[in-house]
């Protein structure tokens, strides 16, 4: 139990010394992705096998390993390069091995750990040159990144509070409790220019000012971990990989606005994040860094963890508050804003996970340091979840203002399987689809807003030539229609009608007038909806209509899907040269639309064909094609 500032400093010095004593540190990624690929068995193998060599091994920083230069074998949070997992990073050299299987552990121990030789075959090889890349920082995927919010993800053991402290953790909150007034903190955050990372982009310091000015005996801080955007997983990675950072960020915010209690609202779909956060809260309380009268300063802060139950709309501030109160998560009109009247009627600040994770380094290094990254209007760094048909998928953090091209082609390594770039969908269901013409657009709040997209929470899905943009718009509309809470008419009915129209278009049943109707409806929903979900729901439709109108027109005029995705708009044919006449397709065809003599090429009667695709699936000779 740490009771004073002096004790904290002494303790941290001791932990740092302990860290410096480590001969080597093996970090096995235990993010959701790597765990799915079996990283925990890799971790166990390292621990047992190094021990079996008679070497001192420890899994926690303060564990007694019985040796002067112990080997630390730790789990770590997400490294971001999920597709290459299980990932192993070895400190202090920063050597990075990918696709590590339990069977590879012996070789890594024998060569790398005991004899300081690299295991070449497990290193990353540059796709262009084929050359092995030794350390993580030299891999193109990481080279262009600047990690602030994700600084510790993949570097420390998320389940060990001591590891966090040894890496500078809880220093920011300790410092401000003794040296700064809440107003000074707000000024520093204002100076940093930090804007809400959950999508809105509202200046964090300004939001705090409102809550600071509100008079109330009770105020709350809520950490919004309801990362509902399909295609985004940065908040999950921070909560799983550096949970104490989230707690510290909340304490800083709490001190700034005068709150003594906080809630972390986590999606039900993130069980691992819930587990690690709960452990972190207990550890911080036991250490005296969280709870009543922290370090004898009189500042108290309590953190509760609330699990969501699956509702996208709960990412909206007022809906989230309703959900914490135990009600249906439906938004209410603002004002009053939560900063004045929020949880149980008390002034409440809701900050996104990533926003909070940026706070400790801003406090330590100052607002001006933060402004050193990014652009004038959008300072700092932002995490993006790079996914879709890109060669390297994963989590990246870049200074704001980097071009889309650098992101997709340099960090992401271009498209996979030699596909051609077609579009990128940015910002989830609230964002928009951008084209090749936007590749040189800087990724910041203003530039994206101008073209009708938004950073949103940072989902970035790359799409290749074989993606149908109408189908993509339909996909997002299906999502928001399903997630619309039903409170206001424009969103409830509007999204449903738009989905109907889009479905009609993909089935080839729509006419030219339906495009005009779709556009009109989209504008009504945008203007008339109560909350952010409805207001932004038409964005995918509007941007695809704007940038890929020809595709919509092909669907309604020519009844063709240029990308060949919409099943109803394709006709099925049999390649007469490839067909061996086995008759399997005719047998499985539910419409009896295929006929032909035995051992002779068959043919499909397109009038009877239901376009179900069963024949394509069954044909062993790849003789059936669509056009």
């Amino acid at each position, binding site marked *: 139990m740490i009771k004073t500032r002096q004790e904290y400093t002494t303790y941290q010095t001791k932990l740092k010394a302990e860290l410096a004593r480590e001969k080597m540190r093996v970090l096995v990624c235990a993010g959701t992705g790597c765990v799915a690929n079996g990283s925990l068995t890799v971790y166990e193998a390292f621990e047992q096998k190094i021990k079996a060599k008679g070497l001192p091994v420890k899994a926690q920083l303060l564990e007694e390993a019985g040796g002067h230069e112990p080997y630390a074998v730790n789990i770590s949070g997400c490294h971001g390069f*999920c597709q290459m997992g299980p990932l192993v990073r070895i400190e202090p050299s920063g050597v990075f091995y990918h696709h590590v299987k339990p069977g590879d552990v012996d070789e890594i121990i024998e060569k790398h750990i005991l004899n300081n030789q690299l295991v070449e075959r497990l290193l990353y090889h540059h796709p262009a040159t084929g050359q092995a890349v030794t350390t993580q920082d030299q891999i193109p995927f990481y080279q262009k990144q600047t990690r602030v919010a994700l600084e510790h993800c993949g570097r420390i053991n998320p389940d060990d509070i001591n590891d966090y402290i040894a890496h500078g953790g809880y220093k920011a909150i300790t410092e401000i409790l003794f040296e700064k007034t809440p107003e000074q903190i707000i000024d520093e955050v204002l100076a940093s220019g930090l804007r809400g990372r959950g999508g809105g982009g509202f200046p964090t310091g300004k939001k705090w000012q409102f809550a600071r000015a509100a008079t109330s005996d009770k105020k709350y801080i809520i950490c919004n971990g309801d990362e509902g955007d399909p295609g985004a997983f940065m908040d999950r990675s921070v909560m799983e990989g550096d949970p104490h950072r989230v707690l510290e960020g909340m304490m800083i915010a709490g001190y700034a606005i005068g709150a003594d209690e906080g809630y972390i609202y986590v999606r039900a779909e993130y069980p691992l994040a819930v587990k690690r956060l709960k452990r972190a809260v207990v550890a911080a309380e036991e250490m005296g860094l969280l709870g009543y009268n922290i370090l004898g300063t009189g500042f108290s802060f309590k953190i509760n963890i609330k699990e969501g139950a699956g509702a996208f709309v709960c990412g909206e501030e007022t809906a989230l508050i309703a959900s914490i109160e135990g009600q249906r998560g439906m938004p209410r009109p603002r004002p009053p804003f939560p900063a004045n009247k929020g949880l149980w009627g008390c002034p409440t600040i809701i900050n996104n996970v990533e926003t909070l994770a940026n706070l400790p380094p801003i406090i330590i290094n100052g607002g001006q340091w933060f402004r050193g990254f990014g652009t004038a209007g959008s300072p700092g760094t932002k995490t993006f979840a790079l996914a879709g048909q890109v060669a390297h*998928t994963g*989590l990246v953090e870049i200074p704001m203002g980097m071009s889309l091209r650098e992101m997709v082609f340099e960090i992401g390594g271009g498209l996979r399987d030699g596909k051609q770039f077609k579009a990128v969908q940015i910002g989830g269901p609230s964002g928009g689809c951008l084209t090749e013409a936007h590749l040189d657009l800087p990724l910041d709040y203003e530039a994206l807003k101008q073209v009708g997209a938004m950073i949103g929470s940072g989902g970035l899905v790359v799409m290749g030539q074989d993606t149908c943009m109408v189908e993509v718009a339909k996909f997002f509309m299906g999502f928001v229609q399903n997630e619309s809470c039903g409170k206001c008419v424009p969103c409830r009915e509007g999204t449903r009608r738009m989905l109907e129209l889009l479905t009609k278009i993909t089935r080839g049943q729509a006419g030219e007038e339906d495009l005009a109707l779709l556009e009109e409806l989209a504008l009504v929903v945008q203007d008339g909806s109560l909350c952010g979900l409805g207001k932004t729901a038409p964005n995918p439709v509007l941007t695809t209509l704007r940038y890929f109108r020809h595709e919509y027109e092909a669907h309604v005029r020519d009844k063709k899907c240029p990308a060949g995705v919409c099943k109803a708009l394709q006709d099925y044919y049999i390649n007469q040269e490839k067909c061996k006449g086995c008759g399997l397709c005719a047998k499985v065809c539910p419409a009896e639309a295929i006929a032909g003599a035995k051992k002779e090429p068959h043919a499909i009667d397109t009038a009877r064909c239901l376009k179900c695709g069963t024949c394509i699936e069954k044909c062993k000779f790849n003789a059936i094609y669509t056009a």
Partner: protein
Amino acid sequence: MQPRKFEKLQEIINKHEGKVSHLIAILQEVQAEYRYLPEEVLTYVATAMGVSPATVYGVATFYAQFSLVPKGKYIIRVCDGTACHVRGAAPINFALRKELALPDQQQTTDDLQFTVETVSCLGACGLAPVVTINDQEVHGQMTPEGVLAVLAKLQAREQQPAEQA
């Protein structure tokens, strides 16, 4: 209705001191106990907590996590987030439903062994497309063939429980 059933329920409600703000957490725990939320259980929760059945029913039907119909022993969730969608989540879902002969609109097999549902995003986009079994096993970079192999393993596990034990 056996009295035992309500005993456990009451225990959960008591643990949360019957606080209305804990309604979601209470329902989550109740569902973990019964695998779904039977109607009589919702009525009981409402009465015990002193709120209207409509309030409890309203919350239970609002959130995707709650089910008012029984679910299967194995809940197979096919992620249909954006990343999984563009990498082919639909054929995986299709293959599963076909193999289990699930008619449209039905998620659970008649023998209550399997439930197939889609989920908006599991946040494992780097591994897309993703399928999870009972939220425990995560299968990444799935294909229709791959998911059928996973299913076959589960089915085999069910058919030979005696040998396993």
